[in-house]
Each structure stands twice: as C-alpha cells, then as structure tokens.
C-alpha cells in the first residue's frame, strides 16, 4: 500500500516535470559569452515565458553535453573540427551569437600606450625578446621610455577559448610559433607563468611590474584594462574595442560560419577576434523530444541573433554580429528540421 502511494507520487512528479520542460530550455558550454547569455536569457524569459537555464561549464563540456543529448543546445568558443563533427552522433549546425577579442595587457608604470606588431608580440611570447629595453620595442614605439626590466609573460593555466584564439592568431602570423608551439585551448608555453581565468591573469599583471599577458575582451572591456595596439593585416595599429572586434567579422565567411576571425583582412578590424557559437542538432527529433520543445529551442536561438539580443551583447561588452553574419545565422536556423520538416518559417 505504502509503496503504491510513493509510486503514484513519483509518477505525478515526473508528469509535472515533463509539463514544465515543454517550455524549459537548457544549454551548457562556453564561459566566455556567459555574461551576455545570462542577460539575454533573462530578458527572453520575461518576454517569452520560456525558462532558459545555462551552465557555464566550458566549451569542451558543452560539446560533451550535446553529444550525450542532455541539453537542448551546447555553446562553444571554438568551432568543431571535422574530426569532432564526425564523432558527434548526428549532424549539427553552428550558430554564431556574438564575437569577442583577446586584448594584450601590460604593466609598465609611466608608460601609457604601446604598439606591437605580430612579429614582436610573438617574439615576446616565444621568449626571444626578454627585456622591455629591447631595440625592436623601442623602434616600434618612438617617444616611449621603456625601463630596463625583465619581461614577465602571463598566460592562462586553464584550458580556454581565449587561449585558443590568441594562439591561433600567433600561429597564423608567426612561422616559428607555428612550428614550435601551435594553437589550442592549452598549449606548451615556451616562457611565462600561468594564472587561472581572466581575473587570475589580470590580477597577476596588476601585481607584477614588467608583465604582459592576454585577457578576454569580455573581462578587459568591463574592467577597462589598458591594452596594446596591435598591427592588423592591413598594416594599421588597432585598439581593441567593440567596434573593431565587430569589424573582424565583415570579411568573407564560409557558409557554415566555421571560421576563426583572427588576422582579418578588413582594414578596421582588430586582428585577435573570433565568434562564439551555439550548437544544435540539425534534426531536432531525438531522445523523444517533442515538436514544441524543438520549436522553443529554435525560437530562442533565432531571437539571440535578432537586433534586440545583439543590443544586449554590446551592453555586456561583446561585439555584435555584423548584419551579413546575422542574416547567415538566421538562414542556417531555417535549415534545421524536426523529422525532416522545417521548424522555423
């Protein structure tokens, strides 16, 4: 008797859970866009009466969660490689939501603004330029009085999309970096100390005179960290701002949006920038998901690339998608199906 009561109670709880989950969308992944996602999802919840939960567990975790089909969408700062796409149980699509940049911050008392070329930047992180008094730095920055001080390189110690973007850039612009270190979420750093997370790196830089390191723009812009001007592909020295980050996406983009925007050829582009993506299955009928659930997921993501949500991106210090990319994202969303039928019109 008692057992059956418990059983009934459990069943009704499960039924209740199902009912709620019809309007409840869950996602997990990248921590880089989390402040933007939190703000956007909260706004969406108020407007559309759908509950959205997002777990910032890292891009790798987001991809794993989607692979295990325990979330409606994953989020990643790095697009899936062809190998990773093959390892997924079903085809997926990438939807870019905004872009961010990596800024180069430094601690040199008395020095306001420095300029760096890709070669000098790579040489510092390779340990080839070890003192601020180096002729290459002085030649590049006439008028700046560099101290005779050892350079302390600070990098991320945890696996990170920020590191991926930064090392991808160095790999593209420097042959020695390409052959000696390469790109990835964690790499084998030739020099420097590691600190955990953007706050860790920023803290270590603040604390150490003569240090230089890279920080994700979402943190650097919010904290108004001073940063170096980096020479872009067109030869211009560009300050990292929301506008110059956004400009990096104005070049040619492949149909599936899987591209690193680093070293963009756009003349006003900041060169160390990239998209962040939401990833979903191309056919939404899996794991007994209802059509309503699939539709709610798609509507949310469609809203994320709308002008309203993109405005929130700027407010939270991310760069909005250029109009062309937002249109591309909307087009991709309209190829997503439920049992072969298109979901969004």
């Amino acid at each position, binding site marked *: 008797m008692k057992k059956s009561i418990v059983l009934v109670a459990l069943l009704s709880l499960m039924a209740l859970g199902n009912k709620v989950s019809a309007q409840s969308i869950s996602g997990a992944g990248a921590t880089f866009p989390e402040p933007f996602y939190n703000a956007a999802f909260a706004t969406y919840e108020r407007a559309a009466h759908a509950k959205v939960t997002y777990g910032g567990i890292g891009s*790798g975790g987001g991809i794993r969660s989607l692979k295990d089909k325990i979330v409606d969408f994953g989020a990643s700062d790095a697009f899936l490689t062809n190998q990773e796409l093959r390892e997924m149980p079903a085809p997926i699509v990438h939807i870019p939501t905004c872009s961010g940049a990596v800024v180069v911050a430094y601690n040199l008392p008395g020095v306001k603004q420095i300029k760096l070329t890709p070669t000098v930047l790579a040489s510092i992180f390779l340990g080839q330029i070890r003192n601020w008094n180096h002729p290459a730095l002085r030649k590049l920055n006439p008028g700046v009085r560099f101290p005779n001080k050892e350079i302390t390189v600070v990098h991320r*110690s945890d696996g990170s999309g920020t590191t991926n973007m930064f090392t991808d850039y160095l790999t593209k612009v420097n042959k020695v970096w390409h052959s000696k270190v390469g790109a990835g979420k*964690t*790499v084998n*750093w030739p020099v420097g100390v590691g600190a*955990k997370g953007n706050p860790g790196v920023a803290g270590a830089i603040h*604390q150490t005179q003569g240090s230089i390191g890279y920080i994700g723009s979402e943190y650097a812009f919010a904290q108004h960290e001073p940063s170096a001007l980096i020479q872009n592909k067109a030869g211009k020295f560009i300050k990292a701002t929301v506008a110059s980050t956004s400009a990096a996406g104005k070049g040619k983009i492949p149909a599936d949006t899987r591209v690193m925007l680093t070293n963009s050829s756009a003349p006003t582009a900041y060169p160390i920038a990239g998209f962040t993506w939401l990833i979903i299955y191309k056919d939404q009928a899996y794991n007994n998901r209802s059509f309503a659930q699939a539709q709610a997921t798609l509507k949310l993501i469609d809203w994320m690339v709308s002008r309203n949500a993109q405005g929130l991106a700027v407010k939270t210090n991310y760069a909005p998608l250029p109009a062309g990319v937002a249109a591309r994202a909307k087009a991709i969303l309209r190829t997503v199906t439920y049992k072969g039928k298109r979901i969004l019109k």
Partner: protein
Amino acid sequence: MNSDKILKRVLFFSSLVIILIAAAMVFSLFKGSLPSISKFGWRFLISDQWDPTQGSENYGALLFIVGTILTSVLALVIAIPLAFCTSLFVAEYFRGTKLASIVGTLVDLLAGIPSIIYGLWGFYILCPLVVEAGLSPQGFGVFTSALILAIMIVPYATSLSNTTIAMVPNDLKEAAYALGATRLEVIRTVILPNARSGMTASYILAFGRAIGETLAVTMLIGNENAIPHGLFSTGNTMASVIANQFGEASGLQLSALIELALLLFVITTIINAIGKYIIKKMG
C-alpha cells in the same frame, strides 16, 4: 529482529558502501586512463613532456610528480618545527593556561579557513613580499606555494600531536622530575619517546593534506609545465594541472589527466601505508 541485529546490519552496510565507493573510484579512474596507459605505458611516469598541441600530443607525469613532492616536502620541512613547538607549548609547557587555550583555538581555526583565502592572501601579500626581497621577478613559484602550504597544514600536524603529548602519563613525568630532570630533559626522555608514534602520524596526515591541496597552490605555483630548477622557480603540481585543464580537455589529454588522478590516488595510498607502518613499528 532485535535491535542488536539491526545495528549490526546497519554498520555492515554502511562500511560496505564506503568500500564500494572507493572501489568505484579506482575502477572509473583506471577505465578513464586506459587510452593514456595503452599509448604511453611506463613512459608516462618518466617523461617530463606535457604537450597538448593537436597532432603532436605527448603526455608525461614526471614534472607534476616532482612539483607535487617538492612543494609538499618543503611545506612539511617548514611546518614541522612550527607544529612541534606549538604542540609542546599548548600541551606541555603552558598546558591548561588561558594562553595555551587561545593559541590552541587559533591553530584549530587555521584548519577551518577555506583554501581560496590562503590562495588570495598568498597572491596579494606573499608574492609582492617575495618580489620585494628580490627573490624572483613575479613572486610565484615553489617557495611561495610551500610557505602557504606549510601554514595550511600546521593545524593538521598539531592537533593529533597535542592529544598524544597530553596523553603521556603524569606518573612518568613526575618520576623524572623527582629524579632531578629539567623540563627539557623530561621532554627529551619521557614525552618524545611516548608521543613519537602519534606525532609522526600527525605529520604524515599533514603531508597527505599538502599533496592533495589544489586551489591555493594553483594560484601561487606559476603553473609552468617544467621541472622546477630551484626554490624560486615556477612549476606545477598534479592536483593543480587537473584542476586547470580538466574543464576543456578531451580525448587523449582527458585520459592523461585521469591517469594523473589515478597516480595521485596511488601516491596518497602509499604515503598512508608508510605512515601506518611507522606508527606500528614505533608504537
């Protein structure tokens, strides 16, 4: 069923659960590290390469093992004199006085401070001091980590020592005093021989704590994947690299990290076994 039988069963099942959990941990660690074990074999233990670059992935644990042992041993070396003196102070010299109870409480309080607080204190106070002293350009490294670890493990090293020192029979001490022994002689010839095994056990407990500490060390060690070449050079530890890289790792890297966790488990088990052996031999 009488209450005795019920109690017996409850106790049996709860201890069974503990064994099952430990076994499940070892099993899942072993299963997760299989790809790495089959790829690197014994080389994993003696290679100091940790290269996660796609295409040339190569993982070895040596630099993390060295970093872990180096920081923990150094921490123990710093902590033992501190803990030893504190124990004698609290449990013998000023036993029962207000001062002793204040000191005792403060030491116990150290154990309750979250490691993030130690990490932040080291980051903002200790690192600048090391830089100011001209010992290293940025303050992070083996020495800074070991110093923080030493402070963190002092309460573990003292609490058990206090109890064992306090448990030395008064009769023995009084007999020694009656024979004209000084306080130092009483400590040397009566208290230490009696309390030796308990004190050793507490130091081993503290050492185990130092090996597993993650957060504070991550913030202070510098996280450089190379074998430290000096007291003030940066390095990395097993717990620290797992905490740093697990979130975004996949494939072979994930497997190598899990194998590191398995190694950490084995090393901790060995240290505990050594501790038990020493206690048994001395006691």
